[in-house]
């Protein structure tokens, strides 16, 4: 299809051709022609956020819960700079986003014009790719290319910066047919000998482990399905990063829980003690490995990743396999079956006996109380009262995020949205809004901290305007709990600026926004209050008053190895546990 239209119309047409149904945005002078084009149509719904950072996080929540590309539209200058945190977040977590930014007219670029900023310059390091379109006849191709680049290979955010005169100009629109990128062709399939080597290595293992990550989720639900089958067939224990939760069902006996800094004892000990590690769509991030020179010593490592630059970046692996998780796992499964392989039964049984001993440590145990709500208990109850529902969970960043990861149990992929790589406070509410837009009838809950939620609190207004009945479940410990925990452990309990002073009354705040507020501070009232929250078909802020002193365990102190993790009941002289070198790390 090729047709004459204005640049602004091309943006809308390209969205339509790409199957876009919802976009998250905020208007301004440099995108008015596009907003005008939006006004003249009704197949694309625009969700008006209250801050451009939230537009990107909403698009991330939408993308992560639906597998589609998230689309953002913001104005030049402050609109673009406000979006930068969201773009960086999407880059770190490999989330497909197309972000359209308005730009001043081409003849004004470089003149410090009103609301001008060097958007492509600023966003170059925080996008997968970006474009400044100076000619309307390039626009359609660039837009289609942006969608291609955002979702192919390792996904990521793409910015298309469009000067206002280009939006007004008329040019030729080309359809999405056959538009890829000239040269960008990620490698999706592994070679047969590598697959053969991988299954042979796995079959020869005595203490194998699958270490899975966000790549399995990004690859699509089929990857999770094949992972499950491969795990069942091989009998290998499975752990996952924060990003990968849900790819493997938490109810499965082979599930060890999350690994890493706040992962389970059994997952980390099994990582430390394994002899063959299959890393699937994860990247040996520092939250996962702990002290690098003591990471899984004596293990052979297979690393499956679509991004060659993830290979041998932090950890040297024995068998790198570049490819898409779905295809590589499918090939491995087929090769395993074709060769009728199996892992030595006696060895595997011994390995599971060892793992069960570690499990017996019951590392997530906490001291229950009748007087005060323990944050872990709150998540456990939230999980138990919602597990039979169609539920999507997002989080903010802090202790509550880690407790959510530890105590909420995910059976399916795409149900869990959290800012992993960047650790962005303020992520959870807009992400829940995005997920709710993609799944209007689902129960979308942002598990929040009282400090984080204030970073994008204004999005309550968006939720109310668009009838998005998200639930904000605040674990209110009146502290930036994760900061307080580190200060306790590393800085002599000097709680410098980590107390949440002058908090708003969240119940009244909910009311002020036109939502519903609920407060609960007694363990005995908790179930009823959660039930009440679930029953309300409007946005709710649930102010759950929890123990202020609780720390998040287990914990691998910075600079320590997996087998040096600290459990809740031995958290005594933590200051001692962390070396000076460890204190340098975050």
């Amino acid at each position: 299809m090729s047709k004459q239209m204005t640049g602004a119309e091309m943006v809308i047409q390209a969205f339509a051709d790409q199957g876009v149904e919802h976009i998250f945005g905020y208007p301004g002078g440099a995108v008015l022609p596009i907003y005008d084009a939006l006004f003249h149509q009704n197949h694309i719904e625009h969700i008006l956020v209250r801050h451009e950072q939230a537009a990107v996080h909403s698009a991330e929540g939408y993308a992560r819960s639906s597998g589609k590309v998230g689309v953002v539209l913001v104005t030049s200058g402050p609109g673009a700079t406000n979006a930068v945190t969201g773009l960086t977040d999407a880059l770190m977590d490999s989330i497909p986003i197309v972000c359209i930014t308005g730009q001043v007219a081409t003849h004004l670029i470089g003149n410090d014009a009103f609301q001008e900023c060097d958007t492509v310059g600023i966003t170059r390091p925080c996008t997968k790719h970006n474009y400044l379109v100076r000619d309307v006849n390039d626009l359609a191709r660039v837009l289609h290319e942006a969608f291609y680049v955002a979702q192919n290979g390792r996904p990521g955010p793409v910015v298309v910066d469009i000067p206002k005169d280009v939006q007004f100009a008329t040019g030729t629109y080309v359809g999405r047919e056959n538009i890829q990128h000239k040269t960008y062709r990620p490698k999706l399939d592994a070679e047969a000998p590598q697959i053969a080597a991988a299954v042979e290595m796995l079959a020869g293992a005595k203490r194998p482990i699958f270490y899975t990550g966000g790549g399995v989720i990004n690859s699509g639900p089929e990857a999770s399905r094949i992972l499950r089958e491969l795990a069942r067939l091989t009998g290998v224990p499975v752990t996952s990063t924060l990003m990968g939760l849900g790819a493997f069902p938490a109810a499965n006996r082979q599930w060890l829980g999350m690994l890493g800094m706040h992962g389970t004892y059994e997952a980390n000990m099994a990582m430390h003690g394994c002899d063959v590690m299959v890393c699937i769509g994860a990247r040996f991030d520092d939250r996962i490995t702990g002290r690098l020179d003591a990471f899984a010593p004596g293990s052979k490592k297979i690393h499956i990743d679509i991004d060659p630059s993830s290979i041998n970046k932090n950890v040297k692996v024995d068998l790198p396999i570049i490819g898409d998780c779905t295809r590589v796992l499918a090939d491995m499964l087929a090769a395993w079956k074709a060769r009728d392989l199996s892992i030595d039964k006696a060895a595997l049984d011994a390995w599971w006996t060892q793992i069960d001993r570690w499990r017996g440590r019951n590392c997530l145990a906490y001291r229950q109380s009748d007087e005060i709500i323990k944050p872990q208990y709150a998540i456990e109850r939230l999980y138990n009262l919602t597990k039979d529902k169609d539920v999507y969970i997002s989080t903010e960043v802090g202790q509550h995020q880690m407790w959510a990861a530890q105590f909420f149990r995910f059976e399916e992929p795409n149900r869990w949205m959290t800012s992993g790589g960047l650790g962005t406070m303020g992520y959870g509410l807009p992400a829940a809004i995005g997920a709710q837009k993609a799944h209007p009838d689902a129960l979308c809950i942002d598990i929040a901290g009282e400090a984080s939620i204030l970073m994008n609190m204004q999005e309550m207004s968006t939720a109310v305007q668009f009838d998005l009945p998200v639930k904000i479940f605040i674990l209110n410990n009146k502290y930036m709990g994760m900061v307080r925990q580190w200060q306790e452990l590393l800085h002599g309990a000097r709680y410098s600026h980590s107390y949440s002073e002058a908090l708003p009354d969240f119940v009244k705040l909910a009311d002020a926004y036109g939502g519903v507020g609920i407060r609960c501070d007694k363990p005995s009232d908790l179930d009823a209050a959660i039930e009440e929250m679930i029953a309300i078909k409007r946005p709710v802020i649930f102010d759950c008053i929890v123990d202020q002193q609780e720390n998040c365990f287990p914990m691998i102190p910075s600079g320590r190895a997996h087998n040096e993790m600290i459990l809740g009941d031995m958290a005594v002289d933590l200051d001692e546990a962390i070396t000076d070198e460890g204190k340098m790390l975050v």
Partner: protein
Amino acid sequence: MPNSSEPIERHTLSVLVDNEPGVLARVIGLFSGRGYNIDSLTVSEVSHEGHLSRITIVTTGTPMVIEQIKNQLDRLVPVHRVRDLTVEASALERELAMVKVRGVGEARGEALRLAEAFRARVIDATRESFVFEITGKSDKIDQFAWLMEPLGLVEVARTGVVAISRGPEAM
């Protein structure tokens, strides 16, 4: 963190990229953002119709870092191909320099004699100065400049390294 006990190596990389605005900024931003070294960098269009530019980068790092650099470069959307010419052995490397020397009498004669020995050409002369043009490997140019120092070296302009593999194949 890459093992710090690994030896530091010096590699010459050839990178074929789309000649589009911002592509050099992407490459340089990658190096500065990730803390990689750039010892030398040259860039120029090599195919007008194909809109292709060739960037030659000389960098140093441990083998693990060098591998990272190549993979990170390859990941940039407008990058077509990355070739490590150091790995391929015996690749050709050349640099061009212009060297300005000021002097009279004895020193002037000596400068001319050395230039001849290095096959440097005189491309500008006044009564009290020469500009020499010299091509060769970087260390040859280093040495020429070093020899000129006592003879009245004023300034040096260098292109940085360009490199190409031997034999009939393209990169």
